[in-house]
C-alpha cells in the first residue's frame, strides 16, 4: 500500500458511476456495518425484554416509540438487503446467475425489493 504508484486514483464518491451490481454490493457492506453497530443495542434490548414484566413493557415501549420504529425499519432493511444479496452471492458461488443479463437483473431485484419488504415486515412485526 505504501509503494509509490503512478496509477490515477479517482475516489470521488459523488462522481463515480457505479453499475447496479456495484450499488447492491456497497449496500451489502453498508447494511452489514449498520447491523454490526446495532449488536450491543440488540443485546441490551434482549436483556431488558427478558428481565421480567416491567423490562418487557419497557422494551415494548422502546421499539414502539417513533425513534424505535425508525431503528427497527433501518435494521429490517439492513437485514433484508444483506440476506437477499447474500443469497445472490451464494448462488453466484455455485455459478448460478453469473451471466450478464441475469447478474444485472438479480442485482436490481435485491436492491429494489429490500425497502418495500422491510416496510411490510416492520409493520407486521411491530
Amino acid at each position, binding site marked *: 500500500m505504501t509503494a509509490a504508484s503512478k496509477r490515477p486514483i479517482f475516489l470521488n464518491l459523488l462522481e463515480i458511476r457505479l453499475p447496479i451490481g456495484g450499488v447492491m454490493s456497497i449496500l451489502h457492506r453498508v447494511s452489514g456495518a449498520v447491523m454490526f453497530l446495532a*449488536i*450491543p443495542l440488540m*443485546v441490551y434490548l*434482549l436483556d431488558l*425484554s427478558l428481565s421480567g414484566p416491567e423490562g*418487557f413493557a419497557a422494551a415494548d415501549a422502546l421499539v414502539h416509540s417513533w425513534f424505535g420504529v425508525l431503528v427497527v425499519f433501518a435494521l429490517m432493511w439492513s*437485514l433484508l438487503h444483506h440476506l437477499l444479496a447474500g443469497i445472490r452471492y451464494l448462488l453466484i458461488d455455485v455459478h448460478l446467475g453469473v451471466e450478464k443479463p441475469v447478474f444485472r437483473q438479480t442485482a436490481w431485484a435485491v436492491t429494489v425489493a429490500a425497502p418495500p419488504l422491510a416496510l411490510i415486515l416492520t409493520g407486521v*412485526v411491530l
Partner: protein
Amino acid sequence: MSRKASGLRAWALQRATAVYLGLFFIYLVGALAVAPPADAAAWQAWMSHPVMSIASLVFVLALLVHAWVGVRDIIIDYLWHTGVRMAALALVALVLAGSGLWALQTLVLARLA
C-alpha cells in the same frame, strides 16, 4: 486470530455462518410475525425452551464470527495506517466479545429463571 480467519478459511466461515444466520432470521421474523409472544411470560418461555436456547447460543456464536470477518474486511480496505487499523480491530473485537458474553449471560439467566 486474524491469521486463522484469513483467506479461504474466512471465506468458508463467512458462508457457513451466513447460511445459519439466514435460516435463523427467517424463522425468528416469521415466528414474530405469525405468533408474537403475548406477554413477558410467553416471551420468556419461548426464549428458555431448550431448543430455542441452544439455537440462540449457536446464533450468537455464528453472528460473532460473521461480524468479525465482515468488519475486518471493511477495516482492512479503508484503514491503511497499521496503528489505526490495529486499534480499530481491537475495538471491534472488544465490542463483539463484550456483546457475546452479555448475550450468553442473558440467555443462560433466561434458562435458569
